[in-house]
């Protein structure tokens, strides 16, 4: 329970930290890092909830959710980066 | 007519102009013939259907189309005596106006668009007339606004666009007030249909304040279209529209829909006696009287012929409201019958004004010297309409004024006679000089913009015969006021039902 709370709590702090950074930093890359850290925080909460002590098999359902979430996050990041690059190209030409 | 078709008839009457209207939009611009056929087909079909309906109502048949939109919200089209009065008026005048418009718009652009909206406009008017409850009324009332907007804007000139915008601003705001009033009323009463004698009499006393507020909202909403002062500002502005549209606006559709709505609310929602108890009639009477005088005064100062007619409409339509505002069957008859009489007289005047403008380029009263000798038939029709408006017997207008006056006496509101008298003097003041100029002043050397149509008459047939026919109506309605099926007879029928006599 302590470990669950500790790890999950760290996840929540990551979420808030990422949110703050997303709101105050303008550059695309920083926003993306912030979003990924937020996402990492939420995943962290899920992994912590799945954890049931060292001798016990953890809950596989949150693990699967996080796996899915990771792929989704990287897809979105990739698309955002290309859009940003496109914008940069336009700016350079314009 | 078999019984099971009866529920379809009111809906069919609305559709008989709506569907041709929709097809007219699709007609290619240069296909003059098909468009004309569609137009006349719709108009004649509707006339036949209305004839069937009059006969049925006379025999005591009930015609009602009910469509459920949603639970508790019903679209009701119902033919009672009052709706038959208005439906007949608009159907007959639509046929005449269609013929006139076909002639008037010869060679002008965007005819498919014009006639499409023209048909929608009449469908909406008929819907307003047949509406069996407030929801249905509001629906068609708003559709009427939408369908007339393109007609007002039709010419496409900056003034037309501006006039249309003003028209829209007034009518849409009014429509919104009407809507709020209708919704509010609905929360108090639940779903109710129009019933002769009203439906609100039994409401508990603690709701009376709310009912007064609702009446104010409804009246404001209807007053815009009925051009009650101070809500009349759009009417003179929308004079930029082509003459058939002006005729439609003033005599058949828009203004009349407003006045008709006031009749409906006073007689079939609140009930005339209950309205009187609430003190609403006094307010309405004051507003109507003020509008009558104000409109006439404004008409006096106008040089533009159509503008003068427009202010005359402001004044004359309020006779209808005045009739509704006086407690007693005789005044009611006066108001109801004026609904028809004002329509046929005013449409005659507008047709004639259009003829002067089209044939001679005459737009102003000051240019009208001697038009009577150049265009005798038109000017004759114009004279009939104008004298009727003043209230000279035996023309229709006299009948209305007579009943209104009697009604005032019956209600012991003697000031009504004063209002009528003043109005008559003012009517004479702005119409007689026109007649004098037209008949007795010498012809000018040159007309502003003369146009020869190559017919043996003074102008094109399609333009000439409609005003002549409607002028004849004015005379017939006055001369044979006591005949069966005359407007007066119907109005008396309505009044009897309303007062339960």
């Amino acid at each position: 329970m302590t470990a669950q709370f500790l790890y999950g709590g760290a996840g929540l702090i990551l979420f808030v930290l990422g949110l703050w950074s997303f709101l105050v930093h303008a550059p695309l890359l920083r926003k993306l890092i912030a979003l990924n850290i937020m996402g990492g925080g939420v995943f962290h909460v899920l992994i912590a909830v799945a954890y049931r002590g060292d001798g016990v098999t953890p809950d596989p359902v949150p693990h699967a959710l996080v796996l899915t979430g990771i792929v989704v996050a990287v897809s979105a990041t990739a698309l955002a980066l290309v859009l940003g690059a496109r914008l940069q190209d336009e700016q350079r030409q314009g | 007519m078999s019984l099971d078709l009866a529920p379809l008839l009111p809906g069919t009457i609305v559709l008989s102009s709506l569907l041709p209207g929709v097809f007219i939009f699709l007609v290619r611009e240069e296909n003059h013939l098909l468009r004309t056929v569609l137009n006349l087909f719709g108009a004649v079909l509707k006339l036949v259907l209305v004839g069937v309906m009059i006969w049925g109502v006379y025999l005591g048949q009930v015609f009602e189309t009910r469509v459920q939109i949603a639970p508790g919200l019903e679209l009701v089209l119902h033919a009672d005596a009052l709706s038959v009065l208005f439906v007949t008026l608009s159907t007959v005048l639509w046929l005449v106006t269609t013929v006139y418009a076909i002639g008037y718009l010869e060679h002008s652009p965007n005819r498919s668009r014009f006639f499409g909206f023209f048909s929608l406009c009449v469908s909406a008017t008929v819907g307003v007339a047949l509406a069996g409850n407030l929801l249905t009324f509001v629906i068609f009332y708003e559709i009427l606004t939408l369908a007339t907007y393109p007609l007002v804007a039709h010419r496409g000139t900056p003034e037309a666009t501006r006039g249309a915008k003003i028209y829209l601003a007034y009518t849409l705001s009014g429509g919104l007030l009407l809507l709020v009033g209708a919704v509010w009323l609905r929360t108090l009463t639940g779903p109710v249909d129009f019933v002769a004698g009203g439906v609100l009499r039994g409401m508990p006393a603690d709701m009376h304040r709310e009912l007064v507020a609702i009446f104010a909202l409804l009246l404001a909403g209807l007053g815009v279209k009925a051009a009650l002062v101070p809500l009349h500002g759009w009417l003179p502005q929308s004079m930029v529209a082509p003459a058939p549209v002006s005729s439609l606006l003033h005599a058949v559709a828009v203004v009349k829909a407003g006045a008709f709505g006031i009749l409906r609310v006073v007689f079939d929602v609140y009930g005339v006696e209950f309205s009187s108890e609430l003190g609403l009639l006094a307010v309405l009477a004051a507003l109507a009287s003020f509008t009558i005088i104000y409109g006439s005064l404004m008409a006096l100062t106008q040089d533009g012929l159509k503008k003068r007619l427009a202010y005359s409409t402001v004044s004359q339509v309020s006779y209808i409201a005045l009739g509704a505002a006086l407690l007693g069957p005789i005044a009611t008859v006066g108001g109801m019958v004026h609904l028809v009489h004002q329509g046929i007289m005013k449409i005659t005047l507008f047709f004639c004004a259009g003829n002067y403008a089209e044939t001679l380029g005459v737009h102003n009263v000051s240019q009208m010297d001697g038009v009577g000798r150049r265009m005798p038939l038109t000017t004759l029709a114009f004279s009939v309409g104008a004298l009727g408006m003043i209230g000279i017997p035996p023309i229709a207008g006299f009948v209305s004024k007579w009943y209104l006056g009697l009604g005032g006496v019956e209600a012991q509101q003697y000031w009504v006679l004063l209002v009528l008298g003043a109005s008559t003097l003012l009517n004479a003041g702005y119409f007689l000089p026109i007649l004098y100029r037209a008949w007795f002043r010498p012809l000018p050397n040159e007309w502003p913009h003369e146009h020869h149509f190559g017919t043996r008459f003074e102008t094109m047939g399609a333009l000439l015969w409609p005003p002549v026919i409607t002028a004849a109506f004015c005379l017939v309605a006055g001369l044979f006021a006591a005949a069966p099926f005359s407007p007066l007879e119907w109005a008396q029928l309505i009044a009897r039902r309303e007062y339960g006599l």
Partner: protein
Amino acid sequence: MSQPALLLAFDIVLLTTLLALALAAVLSPEPRRAVMLFIAFGLWLSLVWARLHAPDVALAEAAIGAGLGGALMLAAARRAARAAQRGTARRADDGAR
């Protein structure tokens, strides 16, 4: 020190490092450095998840989240740096003229 306490201390060190890496990544204004820190954060995160008996997710995070995501961001950071460099160079050119 008892074993649970030791474990707790271990956990706290793990998490403190994680949070520090995240904070550093978030606060770094220089793109390349920020991305490097982010990759480090992701790798550390997968370490933490391995500690929580989530080896599947840890693998995926290391390979996809930190690895590929990091590689993508790194490329973007490099491009941004190049663009900035070119920008300053052009400005320098303009100045020289």
